[in-house]
Every structure is written in C-alpha cells, then in structure tokens.
C-alpha cells in the first residue's frame, strides 16, 4: 500500500492537469463572456479582474428572434433524430436479417455514403430542394439529415450481433416478422439507438453550413446561423464579450443533453470503437 499511494497521487495529479487543460478553454470562454466589449478591446488580460457584467447575455436575450431560432434548432434536431432512428433501425434490420436480391451490393453502396463529403453534393442538393420549393422550411432543414449511412451501418452491425434464437422463439409463438422486430429486437437495440440518437442530435444542433444556405429567411434560421448573423463586423475584436456569450448560450442546450445522456454517450463511443 505504501508503494501504491505515491503512484495513485501522481495519477490523480496527472488527471487533474488533463482535466484542467480540457476545461480551460470553456472556463476562458465563460470568463470573457462576463466582460464588456470595450474592456476586452484593450486586451484579454482584463478578464481576470472585476468588474464583470451580464450585459452580453442581456444583449442576446434582448434579440427578439433568438427564441425562434432556439425553437427552430429544437424542431430540426428532434425531427432529424426521430427520422434517422426510424429509418436506420428499419434499414439495419433489413440488411442484418432479411435475404433479398442485391442486399450486399446495396449495403456496400450505403457504406460508400460514409466516404462522400457533404461538400461534393451540396450544389446538387441545393438545386433539388429549390426545385421542390423546400428552402426556408422545416422540411428543407430536416430531410438532408435523414440520409445517414453511419446510422444504417451501426444498426445493421447491432442487429447482426443479436442471437437469431430470439427471433426464432418469437416466430414459434406465432409472432409476425414486424411484430418480432417491434417487440423483441427493437427494445434490445435501445443502447445503440441511444448512441445514434445522441450523436445525430448533437451533429444536427451544431450544423451550420446547410442551414446557412437553405434557411435564408431569418425567421427560419437555426441557432447556429442566427447567433452568427448577430455578430458585428470584426466581432472577434470589437465584440469579443458578446461573441463569447453567444458561444456559451449556444452550447447550454448541448451541455444539458450531455449531462442527461452522459452514460449513453460514453457507452456509444465505446461501442463505436
């Protein structure tokens, strides 16, 4: 024990330093958000001394559109998450359990989707959505997110790993294929669903590029586009406190999601690895 104690303290100290290094940018952001823009213009060292102010947060909340953007982000993120979970589960089950002509080729094509960057399809997608009149609508913001090759892959692998005996027992009891999927396999895939749901929600919440060019009407802005539009020119210089307050404000909902679903996120990262 006497030998273990110094080692333990070293490990704790190392972890504390690492934790501090991880938290430092967040704390720095928070500190800067509590200073006035004028003070920060002279240099950021003033952040360590009072006076502090909540004015930057007041300026954000005073913008009449900000709660609309929050609502838009929530609707879009939840819509994409629900859609991805539904489609990925169904597709994953199909690829894992059903036999149909061309199944493996289609699955490989889906996997190719993982390798195609969004940038390469953005113009074609924009034109398609223009033709359909979907820009500046929730549909325009939600539909592109529903194509989720990673979700299909994850759910396929998860369903493949489940013992077939479970299904066979249900069939012996007279359950249909859909009932087996709905009542037996889907509940068992909950950990994978949670992982996929959380990652989908987070990536949709943080998405900037597609909402920037699809939602050109400010009433349809998501939070990321909205807070960016509120910044004055040279915001990093003349409006640093406001900029940092925006960063804190935009990350609060995400922080809440992390706190609530922390367990699943860790499990998800482990499962994905």
């Amino acid at each position, binding site marked *: 024990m006497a030998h273990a104690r110094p080692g333990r303290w070293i490990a704790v100290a190392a972890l504390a330093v690492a934790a501090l290094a991880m938290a430092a940018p967040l704390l720095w952001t928070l500190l800067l958000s509590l200073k006035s823009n004028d003070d920060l*213009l*002279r*240099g950021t060292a003033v952040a360590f001394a009072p006076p502090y102010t909540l004015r930057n947060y*007041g*300026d*954000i*909340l*005073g*913008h*009449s*559109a900000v709660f609309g953007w929050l609502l838009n982000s929530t609707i879009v993120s939840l819509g994409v998450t629900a859609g991805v979970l539904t489609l990925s589960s169904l597709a994953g089950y199909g690829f894992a359990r059903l036999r149909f002509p061309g199944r493996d080729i289609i699955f490989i094509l889906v996997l190719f989707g993982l390798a195609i960057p969004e940038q390469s399809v953005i113009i074609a997608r*924009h*034109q398609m*959505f*223009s033709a359909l009149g979907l*820009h*500046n609508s929730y549909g325009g913001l939600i539909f592109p997110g529903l194509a989720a090759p990673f979700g299909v892959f994850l759910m396929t692998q998860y369903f493949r790993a489940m013992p077939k005996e479970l299904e066979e027992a249900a069939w012996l009891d007279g359950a249909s294929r859909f009932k087996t999927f709905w009542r037996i396999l889907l509940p068992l895939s909950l950990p994978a669903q949670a992982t996929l749901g959380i990652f989908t929600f987070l990536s949709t919440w943080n998405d900037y590029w597609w909402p*920037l*060019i*699809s939602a*050109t*009407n*400010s009433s349809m802005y998501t939070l990321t*586009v909205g807070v*960016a*539009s*509120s*910044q*004055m*020119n*040279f*915001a*990093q*210089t*003349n*409006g*640093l406190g406001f900029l940092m307050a925006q960063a804190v404000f935009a990350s609060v909902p995400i922080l809440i999601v992390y706190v609530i679903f922390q367990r699943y996120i860790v499990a998800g990262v482990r499962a994905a690895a």
Partner: protein
Amino acid sequence: MRRIFALLCLTVALCMTGCQRAANGPVEITLQRFFGACDAQYGASTDVAAAEGECAIITTLVNRFNAQNRDVHVKVNIVYWPGYDQLSAALAAGDPPDLVTMHQSVISDYSLRGLIEPLDAGLKSVGVDPTGFTPAARAGVTRGGHVYALPFDNWAMLWHVNMNLFRAAGLVHNGKPVMPRSPDELLAQARQFTRATGKPYLIQSMVNEPSAYARNLFTFLLQQDSDFFADPRHIKLRTPQAHRVLELFKQLYDEGLTTKNQDYTAATAAFLNGQGGVYLVGTWMIGTYDQAARQRGSPLAGGYAVVPYPQLYPARDATYADGHSWVVPAAQRSPEKTRAIFRLLRFLKDNDFEWSRTGHLPAYAAVIASARWRALPHRGDIVRLVDTATPLAPGVQRQFLVQQIISEEMESAITGQKPIDAALADAEHRVNDVLFNLL
C-alpha cells in the same frame, strides 16, 4: 361529412380573409444586411441621432423608415458578414431579398451575370442623381455605364497616429503629425521614431490577414501609376513598382520598425495600449480611437490623429478604397414593391450623414461639403480622401479572393519565407488562374 365540409368552408373563408388582409396591408420588402444585430438596445428605437456605430445606426434608420412609412414594412434579414453565400443561395433558389448590402468591389461578380438590376431609372424616379455621388462612390457602383447600386459610403485604410509618441519622437509639426513623402523618408522617420521611443513605428495586422497587405500594395501601386489591372481579367505584378513596395515593407519588417506576429485583434489592442506610432487600419476605427483619446489615463489621451496614407511616390496621390452599397437582386416584383424599394433607397441616401458618423466617408458630395460632417471629429483631416480614394478597375471580379491571394504571397515575402520576385510571380500566377477560370 357535414362537419368536414363546414371545416373546409371555414378554412377557405379564413384563407380568403387572410389573403384580403395581405392585399390591403403594407407592402413588405425584405432587406438583407450585415453589420450585426443590436435589438436589445435599439430594436424599437427610431432615434437615429442617438445611435452610435454601424449596427445601431442602420437599425434605427430602418425603424424610422418603417415608422414614417406605414404603407411599407421593411423586414430585415441580418446575415453573418459578408453574407454573399446566403445571397447566392437565395438567388439560386429563385427567392432573393429585395435589397442587399454589397461591397462595391463585389458588384461586378453579380452585375456581369445579370443577378442584380441596374438602378438608373429607379433612382431617377425618386430624385437620386448619380452626379451627386462622390467620384469614388460613382466609380464604385457604375458598371458598363449603368448604376448598379446606391452607394452608402466609401472606406479606405488610414494612418491612425499616436501623437503622444510622435511628439516624443520629434515628429509633430504645428500640431500635425509629420508624414513621409517618399519611401526613404518613411524609413528615416521610422528609425527616428523607434530610436526615440523604443517602440515600432508601424503597427500592422500581419497574421491571418486576408486583405491588409493587398490594400497596401494597391495603394502604393496606384501612387506609382502602375497599370496592374489594365485588363480586368489579368493582373500584372512582376513589375518594378510592385517589387519596390514589397521591398519597402520587408525592410520595415527586417529592421524591427513594425510590429510582428500580430493578428487584427492584437494590433487593434496594441495601438490602444500605445505600443506603436502608426496603425494601418480603416476608417471604421476612428470613433473607437477618438473615444480612447478623450479618456484620462489612456495611452492615446489627448494624442490621437488620423490621416490618409501619405503619398510616397510622385506620380499621383491615391489610396485604394472600397465602399458599402445597396443592390437590388434581379427578380419579378410588383410595381408597388419596386416603388417601395426605391423610396427606401431615397431615404437611405437622405440619411447618409447619419451613416457617415460610423467613420466611413460619405458617398455624396453634398454631405462632404456640409458643415455638420466637417464638424465631426477628424473628418477635416481625412477629407483629402474624397479626391484620392480609388477603387480597382470596375470589371475586376472576385476581388476578395484576389486580395487574399496577394496577401498570402506578400506575407511570405515580407516575413522572409519566399524571395520577393518569387512571391510576386506566384501571386500573379494564382490570381490570373482564378480570373482565367471564371465562367
């Protein structure tokens, strides 16, 4: 069934009532702009005179227009600077806004593709005469003989001077900063300044800087009468004139006569904190530094001056300039909406003095000549810009990208990562490659 039928009738009736209301209601026009949002302080204010800064002034101006014109409602779409991605996306989707802020240097990118409308007839209909624009503003918004935008201002890089340090260096004469009249004088004065104060003469934003280097180069090429954009689709940078400019800035850098490794934020703070003599930055910083000069204890207290770039080369006095303007994207619009747009443009023109309080140069000769504009702090010291402000040739496209490429290559040369001639050759090749491949 009856209930469904009744519900349908009710829906149709409600819709018709709604449509009727819309037809009789105010004409709505959508204005897309940058300059940020400041609704918390100015969202309901129409007191333009009390507003300070770009965001506050434009917000209160639009509020006032809405208050004074009950038959028109201006809906504002604020976009992240500069907003051209959103504009292009909206144009591609066939749903552009009615009025958009646009840098004058960007107009060619849209006018040559027919994406914005010429405004000659519309401006005439509301009594806006382009002959009243300043020369720089008129050149900035005119393409192929047509006016494509209502100019709102012109801006240029300036020499912001710390007079307290200049005094210590013996570079003040009759209360004015002594400005160099040649590259040799600039070097001599910079050395004198640094010897006397122990601080660099120039403060420059030199890191992650997409445009400042290029603006410096343009200014000093214009002063040498270089025809670097004789053909708007072909730049010439492998010239003795360009070499001279880069050599000058490299020497300032090598001798420690300028700050090094500072980005825009650091350089802006450095000048506020008295860490150098001259900060090369635009018209938009006049208000901030003037305010600092009025604060007791500030390194700039009682010692701030601002002047246009000095004429270092004898051919002509010129400073590269750009400006903000208002364009109307091409779209089908009702006559009522078109009339409303031009009424708003007239209103913005009539309030150009208010906008000029941001520090930018007015776009109208009458405002420049007015006593109230000249009474604003330091405006008399920069009025020379009215005659010297010069945009690039009107047909030059992709000017933001051109500036970025030139700035990257200049940075390489000035900081010694690349020989000057190689940097100029690379800049020329890269810019011409971009311009050659334009559709």
